[in-house]
């Protein structure tokens, strides 16, 4: 299941065809949350090889914004955009195989977590860890659309932290000058690792940075999935019509640590609990659906069950997936030559060590 070709902006109309889309949004949010919960279990079983990054409390940002894209549009997710990737066509089994470093994962074990993409069919590009770098890259992706007169749009996510980087500035400025069809979303989740936004930037509103680039800026409630969809859709369609880039700041809150190991000791007491209680994007959306949209609770429970089943099935597949072949580690640095040579002291050896253990010192707890 992927994003529909041209979703209408009239999502809120429960009587019309919008109802199916409203439920799809719920499905993607639930799938995101449940898949991450499954990943926590696998992490605690030490089956996740590296770190685990959660988007708990940010599912509306990811899902609502990505839902505003067409299939041919290109999305560049950040570490808390699992939901965006699922909407764009990434599958739970791909995500699980990535985290579990399997040989049939989308990157064949070369990269971690949700750092993967597909520009052939589903049109999303895996990020790198250097924050801000995807903004110039997406400026170039969308420059190609403009040069070729293709009616396609790009969407790139950054966090509040990445707005401090030079790459963010250079990329958005380039896109603005070249009027590239690019939407830049700043997910302001209050923390960059442990650093609160006020220590990141003295501006009160990150959306105000748009003025410095001569492009429209908007700020929206990122925990309201319909609002997120609406503000993104407007920016996407403006870009598609030749109106150039937009900078959107989505206000949200990161309820888990930077990664699963982070105990969040730097967060003021009660803050996380307050957001969980008062401003959970899934709870809020359930309220909208069962309230004004008139969706029965049983219908949502059926969606929950469907998401669970899909994740169970994906987990079985991922657990049965083979590890990478060590020699594959030398393949594909260049198109030509296709593989790098084995070093002289490794000639004829197929595996460097007898067992490939996850370093115990990295820990398996989140406390």
């Amino acid at each position, binding site marked *: 299941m992927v994003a529909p070709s041209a979703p209408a902006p009239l999502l809120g109309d429960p009587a019309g065809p919008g109802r199916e889309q409203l439920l799809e949004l719920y499905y993607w949010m639930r799938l995101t949350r449940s898949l991450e919960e499954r990943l926590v279990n696998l992490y605690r079983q030490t089956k996740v090889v590296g770190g685990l990054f959660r988007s708990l409390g940010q599912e509306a940002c990811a899902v609502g914004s990505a839902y505003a894209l067409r299939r041919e549009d290109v999305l560049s997710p950040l570490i808390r955009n699992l939901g965006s990737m699922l909407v764009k066509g990434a599958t739970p089994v791909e995500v699980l195989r990535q985290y579990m470093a399997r040989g049939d994962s989308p*990157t064949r074990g*070369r*990269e971690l977590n949700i*750092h*993967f*993409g597909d*520009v052939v069919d589903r049109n999303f*590009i*895996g990020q*790198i*860890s*250097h924050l801000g*770098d995807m*903004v*110039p*890259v*997406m*400026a*170039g*992706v*969308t*420059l*190609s*659309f*403009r*040069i070729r007169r293709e009616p396609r749009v790009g969407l790139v996510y950054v966090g509040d932290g990445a707005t401090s980087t*030079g*790459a963010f500035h*250079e*990329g958005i*400025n*380039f896109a603005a*000058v*070249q009027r590239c069809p690019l939407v830049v979303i700043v997910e302001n989740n209050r923390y960059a690792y442990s650093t609160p936004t006020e220590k990141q930037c003295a501006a009160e509103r990150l959306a105000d940075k748009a003025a410095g680039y001569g492009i429209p800026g908007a700020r929206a409630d990122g925990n309201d999935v319909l609002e997120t969809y609406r503000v993104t859709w407007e920016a996407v369609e403006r870009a598609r019509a030749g109106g150039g880039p937009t900078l959107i700041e989505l206000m949200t809150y990161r309820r888990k640590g930077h990664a699963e190991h982070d105990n969040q000791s730097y967060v003021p007491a009660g803050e996380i609990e307050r957001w969980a209680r008062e401003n959970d994007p899934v709870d809020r959306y359930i309220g909208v659906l069962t309230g004004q949209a008139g969706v029965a609770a049983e219908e949502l429970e059926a969606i929950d069950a469907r998401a669970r089943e899909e994740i169970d099935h994906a987990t079985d597949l991922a657990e049965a997936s083979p590890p990478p072949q060590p020699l594959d580690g030398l393949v*594909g*640095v*260049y*198109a*030509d*030559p296709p593989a*790098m040579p084995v070093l*002289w002291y490794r000639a004829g050896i197929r595996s460097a060590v007898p067992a490939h253990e996850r370093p115990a010192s990295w820990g398996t707890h989140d406390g």
Partner: protein
Amino acid sequence: MAEVTYLEAIRQGLVEEMERDPAVFCLGEDIGAYGGAFKVTEGLLQRFGPDRVIDTPVSETGFVGAAAGAAHMGLRPVCEMQFIDFLSCAYSILTNYVATARYRAFLPCPMVVRGPSGGYVRGGPFHSQNPEAAFLHTPGLKIVCPATAADARGLLKAAIRDDDCVLFFEHKYLYRRIKEELPSGDHFVPLGKARLAREGKDLSIITYAATVWKALEAAAELEREDGLSVEVLDLRSLLPLDDEAIVATVKKTNRVLIVHEDTMTGGIAGEITARINELAFEWLDAPVRRVAAHDVPLPYAPQLEDFVLPQTSDIVRAARWVAGY
């Protein structure tokens, strides 16, 4: 056929590739209406229009990153660094993003980053650098340093057609000093293949870029004054390195001097020395020696720059030492 300068050869290569393939486009600072700081791209804007000759903001990370994104989508961007010294501004995105794209994400990234490098021009610390060694250590990049006009055109065409990122170091000292008739037709020089610039049997000088010409001057002097037959191997590509050609010249002359304009410590001469040690140790009759720039930032005043950089007389002296060992 008329003689063409090294600079005009680069422009010819660009024009020919842009005419051959509509996916090729140029971007960089002041390359459009102004034609570039050295006029390499002069006339291209008029010929190909503003979508294929793009003047960018002063933002090396921005336009190198944008080139990568466009390359993912099937275009073939050619970035100009106004001076190659500014390549370091894009170091992170080149080494972390571009160089890893194919390996980590199976993302094609066919792009060229070209620009004027090198000294002997009184450019001072920030308009004379030779930063190639900083990128030699990055799997995923290719590095080319042409010394002749024919190679400048032929290697540029190969670089543009290559499916990975090629850093193309032009030497600004050679831009208007080197002039030759170019081979006719779609002449193409493969990456990773060295060129024998002069054949000899007593001693090999392995070098690239502007010091190829100093090595040739030194070889002529050594033949005239010492009766030495000196071979000069022009590497042309630094990444990948032509091990075969290096080993062949070592086996032929058994004595090697490596010369480069880049600074000594961490320069590519060290890597070549290590390879000779590993691949052809028993063929050597003398230690491999290096002639390179002194380990200082490049100074401006002629007296200082000339002292810091390797000169023809240095190569002659060093070659005599190796030959007499």
